[in-house]
């Protein structure tokens, strides 16, 4: 493993208004290794990679590639040096074919700028064969699975002759089986002499795939270690700067009555078509219970959640809250019955970012009698409520008149959690509640969910993060293709087993729970 250095960073510093994202970072990546970079959200991983890929210019420091000092002033320059980036959020155009996506920006052309599409397809096919990727160059990208789209991203980079591949959180969107396939692809790339930088915060995966690991914390390098010579707790401590508890306590709670129930729920996919996004789903969530829903994103979870909180019309079936039929009720009516909702996309559904913090904190409660005085908003009452909750949930905000977009992601999520937990909800529907949060904020949210469960709330937790579902839920349902393809009790099932259900390889009938 003592290859010559491919790339060396010396004292890279990158500052943004009010924050130093990278602080004198030194890093050496050797030819032919898989080098992981780990750190919490906000540790500076993404910034560092953007510097490396030419999207940002460092304020100080230098970069050398194969021993030569270089200036990387854009993605093009990076590619010319053999550096390619596989982005976390796929940079793919759904209406284009695989080949069109791959060639964009470096198209083979004849006279008049005519695309040589046949040649492009042939070259893509050849690359796929070389690295063992199963892909059809003529397929539309929008029709591919997440794993396949990721392969297109990798092929895109290889097509441009990259020798060093940067993969930014590549496993975040994959199911266990797809992760395995990605890892075998990466190992094959390494065999053929490619160098890989693997960015992640999932320590098990990092230990599995990488040769060496560099840990970042708050913009600084904490250290670089050999994967073979370290352990998960050690890495976690390096990342967070203190020993961390990797397991949450999950106290025994006796579930009570069914609070939220779906009977043969069928929901349309929207867009005016007849396609159904959710088909015939039965589920029941009881007081004092967390019901987890696992599944690859895009298998109907979003639509299921929206239907449960009244944001999407129910085509067939019934929805009951505490035994009352609310199938035809509006979102407001369902809310007023005590159903709280932490939306999966806090920027789209959760917050009105340009509005002030105080306005966001009463969003969805603003029509309660507590906050209105005739037709007017009762500011004194609102201010009291906001001040109390800012204190209780430790929301770091200088001025509640500032727009919500000025808050950090963790604080934004706290605003939502504080809001949704107020007025004693009976049911909580939480979708991806910890997405994009750092370890501290994640722990906070997860503890809140468990506390709610202890207090007798009925919690429906939808998460694409399998470990979260496994560690928090009392029961787990798996969604695939819009259907509930399996339901398990806590401890009854492993992650690998769930993966089989999540990909549609296995299924078993879900027996509707008889309401107590």
């Amino acid at each position, binding site marked *: 493993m003592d290859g010559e250095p491919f790339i060396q960073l010396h004292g890279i510093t990158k500052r*943004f*208004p*009010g*924050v130093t994202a990278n602080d004198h970072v030194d890093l050496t990546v050797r030819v032919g290794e898989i080098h992981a970079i780990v750190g*919490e959200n*906000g540790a500076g991983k993404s910034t560092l990679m953007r510097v490396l890929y030419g999207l940002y210019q460092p304020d100080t420091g230098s970069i050398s590639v194969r021993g030569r000092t270089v200036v990387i002033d854009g993605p093009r320059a990076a590619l010319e040096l053999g550096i390619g980036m596989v982005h976390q959020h796929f940079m793919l155009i759904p209406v284009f074919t695989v080949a069109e996506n791959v060639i964009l920006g470096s198209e083979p052309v004849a006279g008049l700028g005519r695309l040589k599409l046949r040649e492009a397809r042939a070259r893509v096919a050849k690359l796929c064969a070389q690295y063992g990727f199963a892909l059809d160059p003529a397929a539309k990208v929008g029709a591919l699975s997440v794993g396949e789209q990721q392969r297109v991203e990798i092929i895109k980079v290889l097509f441009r002759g990259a020798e060093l591949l940067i993969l930014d959180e590549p496993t975040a969107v994959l199911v266990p089986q797809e992760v395995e396939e990605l890892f075998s692809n990466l190992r094959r790339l390494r065999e053929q002499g490619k160098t890989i930088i693997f960015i992640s915060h999932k320590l098990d995966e990092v230990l599995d795939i990488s040769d060496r690991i560099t840990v970042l914390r*708050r913009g600084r390098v904490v250290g670089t270690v050999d994967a073979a010579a370290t352990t998960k707790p050690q890495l976690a401590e390096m990342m*967070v*700067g*203190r020993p961390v508890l990797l397991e949450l306590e999950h106290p025994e709670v006796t579930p009570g009555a069914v609070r939220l129930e779906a009977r043969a729920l069928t929901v349309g996919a929207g867009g005016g078509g007849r396609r159904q996004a959710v088909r015939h789903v039965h589920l029941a969530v009881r007081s004092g219970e967390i019901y987890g829903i696992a599944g690859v994103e895009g298998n109907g979870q979003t639509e299921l959640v929206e239907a449960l*909180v*009244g*944001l999407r019309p129910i085509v067939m079936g019934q929805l009951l809250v505490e035994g009352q039929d609310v199938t035809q009720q*509006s*979102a*407001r*009516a*369902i*809310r*007023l019955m005590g159903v709280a*909702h932490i*939306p999966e996309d806090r920027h*789209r*559904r*959760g*917050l*009105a*970012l*340009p*509005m002030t913090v105080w*306005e966001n904190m009463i*969003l*969805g409660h*603003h*029509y309660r009698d507590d906050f*209105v005085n005739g*037709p*007017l*908003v009762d500011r004194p009452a609102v201010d009291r409520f906001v001040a109390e909750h800012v204190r209780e949930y*430790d929301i*770091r*905000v*200088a001025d509640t008149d*500032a*727009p919500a*977009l*000025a*808050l*950090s992601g*963790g*604080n934004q999520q706290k605003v939502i959690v504080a809001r949704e937990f107020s007025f004693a909800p009976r049911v909580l529907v939480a979708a991806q509640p910890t997405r994009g949060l*750092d*370890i*501290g*904020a994640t*722990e906070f949210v997860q503890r809140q969910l468990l506390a709610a469960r202890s207090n007798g709330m009925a919690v429906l937790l939808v998460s694409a993060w399998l470990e979260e579902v496994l560690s928090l839920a009392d029961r787990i349902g798996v969604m695939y293709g819009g259907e509930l393809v399996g339901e398990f009790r806590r401890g009854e099932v492993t992650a690998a087993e769930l993966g089989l259900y999540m990909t549609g390889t296995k299924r078993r009938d879900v027996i509707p729970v008889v309401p107590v």
Partner: protein
Amino acid sequence: MKGRLLILQIAAPVLAIAFGMLISSIIILAIGRNPLEVFGIMVRFSLGRTDSLFSILFKSTPLIFAGLAVAMSFRVNLFNIGVEGQYYIGAFCAAFVGFSLRGLPPIVHLPLALLAAMAGGMLWALLPIALKIRRGAHEVITTIMMNYIASALILYLIADVFRDPAQAGTPRVRTPDVALAARVPSLGPFFGNFGFAGSDVQKLNALLLLGLTLCIILAYALARTRFGYEVRAVAANPTAAEAAGIANRRVEFGMFMLSAAIAGLIGLNDILGFFGYLDIDFPKGLGFLGISVALLAKNNPLGVILAALLFGFLDRGAQGVQFFARVPKETIVIMQAIIILAIVVAYELLTSYIRIQRKREAEGTPAMPAAAAEAAP
């Protein structure tokens, strides 16, 4: 920070107006005139004479309604470009109620005419907003098409259906006279008490007061009421508003209808306040000016008053430069358009500057709670 923001917020429109003047100066130079002299004439003519001051107020009155109408739709991110057509229809409805009913007392007849105008405006907005909400048809194109149709319809109604029989044999194409009971009272007698007189004083009517009142009421309602809160939420993020149980379609519909109702009143300054009938040469284009007024005012009802006054001033000034400086009044029209382009750019730059400042401030305060707390024992 707050003080600096306020200065910037005032500076943005001032700079945009200065930029508009700069471009106009270049145009005036290009036609061989001295811009300073032209602007001097404009200011002296518009502000140096009492008749001009009253004329500016008269010209600003419909612009207040027009700007307010457009602003109300912009507030929920809908582009009601159909204000133009809506006020044609509103003007006709008011005139119709005015000339077809007789013998009603003013306390009944005038409000009836105003309501008819608002109903006419709303009627003309119903199809575009319904198509927008139900079918996703872009309201900009549909409302513009409705403008053309309104124009044709009004022409037909005035020329072929309700043409004043008393005008038969003359080239005048107009409706019969509106009953006196439906006319808007002039403010002339009031100002007469202070020694002001003349036709420009007589033209000024109570609709100015109605417009100002409407602006103040709506400013208060949007800032302080629950409905105003919901409007802000829908504008800021309709999907989040929906998740919060706000019927955003209903809010959008309501604001669009409010916009159209106000639009219906635009033409009345001339129809019920001055002429007393509707003819085919009634003032047109006020709806489009309303877009400019709303943009300049940043959709703030109180800002609408100032922006309308500015445009009234420019309009009066244009008459002055045309008459006294022999510079085409279109120069001022171009200046208005340039001001609008400059103002939207200035506001955009200001918004992104504020966003960056806010981020800087927020991140300057101790963020990353857990880690920061651990690091500082």
